[in-house]
Every structure is written in structure tokens, then in C-alpha cells.
């Protein structure tokens, strides 16, 4: 069970709260969608849940224990832009093996051909790279996967392929899936449960409020 209790977060002590009083719980095998337009703290929430950021108040627990800081984190995040989430100096093979090596059948399912393995990231397209980034964290040690706008920059065909494979594997491995997107239609098709940050957000942030004051 991945639990987030009463999360508060802001990027600086003089800045307005980005996340206020958010709680959620994800059970193994759950598929939960998080919906909000940009600027509502979707990515911040994703980073809090995966342990990239520490909440100012509240805590994130995995089976009543805090997320591991030093060892492999069973809660993994897939970023929107794969080009930033991959070391441009490494070959694909090495990128895939950075954590626990992925299963061969997952690579096959995602359509990652063995000829990519010896290439550099700039030699692959955005869609191909995103599949590599997903395959990197789809191993059995990952128990919760947070997809932060994972397919937002991909074409419809690649999107369909990726979601089909990811949902399949999540079902097989009893992996909890949190899908973050601004796209209501996509979330309606993928998730039985959907959390809408626009309604739960107490004060809607506007751009003036987000800018630091001097």
C-alpha cells in the first residue's frame, strides 16, 4: 500500500504552497489517474510520491515504512521528457541496466529491438527513447509506477502501444499505477478511479502568485 498523508509542499519559504493537504492511497494493482491542467502541481505531487522531493509537512509511506533513501526505490517515476531522463553519453544497453536489468519479454513487448542496444540516445526518436525509459523501471522490483505525462509528447500509435504494454505488465505483476495527465479523455479510458486536482485544490494558483516577490 502506497500512502500519502496530508502532504504540504512549496519550493521556497516565500513562495505559495504548491501542494496543500493532499492525501491519497494506492493499493497494489490499482490504476489511479490524476487530472489537472498545467500549474496545479501534478509533477510536484509525482515527485513527492516517488521520493524526489521531501514534503514540508505530512509523509509518504510504503507499507507503513518510509521510502528507502539508499537502496532501490520500489516507487518509480517516468518523466515526460525521456531526453532529460537519460544520460546522453551512455549507450542504450547501459541505460537499461542502471537499475535492476529489465526482463527480455518486457523489452520485446515494448518493441525495443536488440539493434538499439549499442546505439546512443541521440540516435533514437523520442518515442523509442521513452520506451527505453519505461523499460528501465518495469522490472519486478518496481511495485508502484508513476507515469507523469508519460506519453504526452508521443503520437497516438506509440501511445496506444505503450499503454497497452504497461497496463498488461502492471496487471501481471500486481503493480500499482498512477497516471498523471492533463488529458481527461486518456484518463477516462485508462483509469477506473480518477483524482481531479482542480476540484480538490483549495486556492487556485495564478501566475502572479507563482512569481517570487522582490
Amino acid at each position, binding site marked *: 500500500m502506497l500512502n500519502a498523508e496530508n502532504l504540504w509542499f512549496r519550493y521556497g519559504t516565500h513562495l505559495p504552497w504548491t501542494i496543500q493537504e493532499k492525501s491519497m492511497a494506492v493499493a497494489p494493482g490499482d490504476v489511479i489517474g490524476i487530472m489537472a491542467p498545467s500549474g496545479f502541481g501534478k509533477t510536484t505531487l509525482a515527485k513527492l510520491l*516517488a*521520493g*524526489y522531493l521531501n514534503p514540508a509537512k505530512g509523509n509518504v509511506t510504503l507499507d507503513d515504512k518510509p521510502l*528507502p533513501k*539508499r*537502496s*532501490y*526505490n520500489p516507487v*518509480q*517515476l517516468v*518523466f515526460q*521528457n525521456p531526453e*532529460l*531522463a*537519460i*544520460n*546522453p*553519453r551512455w549507450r542504450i544497453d547501459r541505460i537499461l541496466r*542502471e*537499475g535492476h536489468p529489465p526482463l527480455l519479454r518486457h523489452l520485446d513487448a515494448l518493441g525495443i529491438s536488440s539493434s538499439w542496444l549499442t546505439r*546512443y540516445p*541521440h*540516435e533514437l526518436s523520442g518515442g523509442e527513447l521513452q520506451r527505453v525509459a519505461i523499460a*528501465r*523501471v518495469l522490472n519486478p522490483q518496481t511495485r508502484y509506477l508513476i507515469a507523469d505525462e508519460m506519453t504526452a509528447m508521443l503520437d497516438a500509435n506509440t501511445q496506444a502501444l505503450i499503454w497497452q504494454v504497461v497496463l498488461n505488465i502492471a496487471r501481471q505483476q500486481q503493480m500499482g499505477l498512477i497516471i498523471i495527465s492533463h488529458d481527461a479523455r486518456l484518463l477516462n479510458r485508462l483509469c477506473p478511479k480518477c483524482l481531479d486536482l482542480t476540484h480538490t485544490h483549495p486556492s487556485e494558483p495564478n501566475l502572479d502568485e507563482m512569481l517570487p516577490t522582490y
Partner: protein
Amino acid sequence: MTLIPPQAPLRRSRLQRLTLSRRQQTLWVIGLCSLFLLGIILSTWIIGDTGLNPILAQRNQSPSLDHPFGTDWLGRDMLSRSLHGMSLSLRVGLLAATISAFIGSSLGLAAGTLGGWVDAVITWIVDVFFSLPHLVLLILIAFAVGGGTTGVVVAVALTHWTSLARVIRAEVLQVNSSDYVQLSHRLGRSPLWIARHHMIPHIIPQLLVGLILLFPHAILHEAALSFIGIGLSPHIPAIGIILAESMRHLSTGYWWLGVMPGVLLLLAVKAFDWLGENLRDLLDPKTSQG
């Protein structure tokens, strides 16, 4: 009816051959530049002292096959004098640039990794150095140390580390906050492992290119300091001293005394420049494969 010109396939293959050889081209430029510079440095040992002794019967000869750079007012061969001067300048420049790169990279790494007040102090020092006129600072330090070879090395080393420190600091900060390094932490990798596998491979090429692009600066400033008389001693045939001496003879029509050593200096500096640029292309995976 010749809609398709018969040369079309031939032309494409020629173009293909040209584009395919870009990596080889880069390697060739790097090889030739290194060979040229190494040749200059080693030339002193090969030619020895021949041509440095005055032969008054051969004074002020313009460039010929016997003396490609001509001879000076004492009948010394300008080619061997220029090579001796250039070799010395290169060695002084290498030493100064290496010290400078060492200072720059250690301070840049410290600022980038430690952050906090260490970063603030180092950034402040860099800003102070940037706000002062380069050459004035160089002259002041060289003068304060007492001139000579040490003066030049210390002055160039102390004034040239700033830009490299800034580059290294920025790279460290950028890589540290990048998604893939953050992700590497979550994949269970230790900070030491990340430093070894993500940071250092990213920093080393920047350092190498920065170092090589520092050489021409160091050499030019060594020549400049020697030219105005607070660099190397006038007894040593440094390139700056040869150029300073030639000034007196330029108006009398002995153009080769200034032009020939000047061209050699220009070529050596440019060779370092090409070396650095091509090495950068080679080390960046985006451009190394073409």
C-alpha cells in the same frame, strides 16, 4: 530526353564519401596539429645551437632557401631563433595553462558540489577577476612576483582559471540537478557511483577542451609580457623578445624579422585552437559519429 543526368549516382557516392570521412577528418586535424606542436617543442633538441651563433658576414639577409626566415642584424638564422623561442613559449604556456586548469577545475568542482558559502566565496572571487581588466592584472602580478619565467607562469596561471572554473561549476550543477542523476539515486545508486559514472565522464571532456583552449591564451600572454619587457629575460630567445627586438628594424625594411616569427606564433596558437575545437567534436557523442 535526358531527364536523369547520368552523373547523378556518381555525384552521390562522392558526396557520401565526403560525409563519411568527417570523423576521419577530425582525427587527421587532431593528429596534424599535435604533430606540428610537438615538432616545435622538440625542434630545439634536434637543431641544437646551430644558427644561433652570430655570423657577421651573413647579416640582414632576406628569406632564402638557406635561411627560410632570413637572418638578423648579427647574422643569426631567424628560423632556428624562432623555433627556439616558440619551443620555450610553448613549454611556458603548457606549464601555466596546466596549473591554471588545475586551479580552475578544483575550485569549480568545489563550488558545484559543496554549494553554500563555499560556492558563494568562489563565485565572488571569479566575479572579481572578471571585473578587472585581464592584461592589467597579468602585468601587476608578473611585476609583483618579480618578472622572469616564474612571473609569467604565476601571472598567467592566476588569471586564467576563472572561465574554466565557471564552466565546470555550471556543468556540475546542471548534471547534479538533471533528471537522470536524480533518477539514478532512486535506482539505488550511491553518490560515489554517480560521481564516477555520471559526473566525471561529463566533466573530463569539458576540462580537456578547456585546458587546450587555454594554451593559446597562455602563449599569447607570455609573448605579450615578454614583449613589454617584464616577462622572460632578454637573453633568452623567447618569441615575445624576438618580436620586441624586431620592432626596431621594421622601419628599415627588414620585414622578415617581425613577420616570420609572428606567423609562426599565429600558426602555433591556431593549431591549439583547431586541436581544441576538433577534440570537442570528437568527445561529444552528438558529433563524434558523423
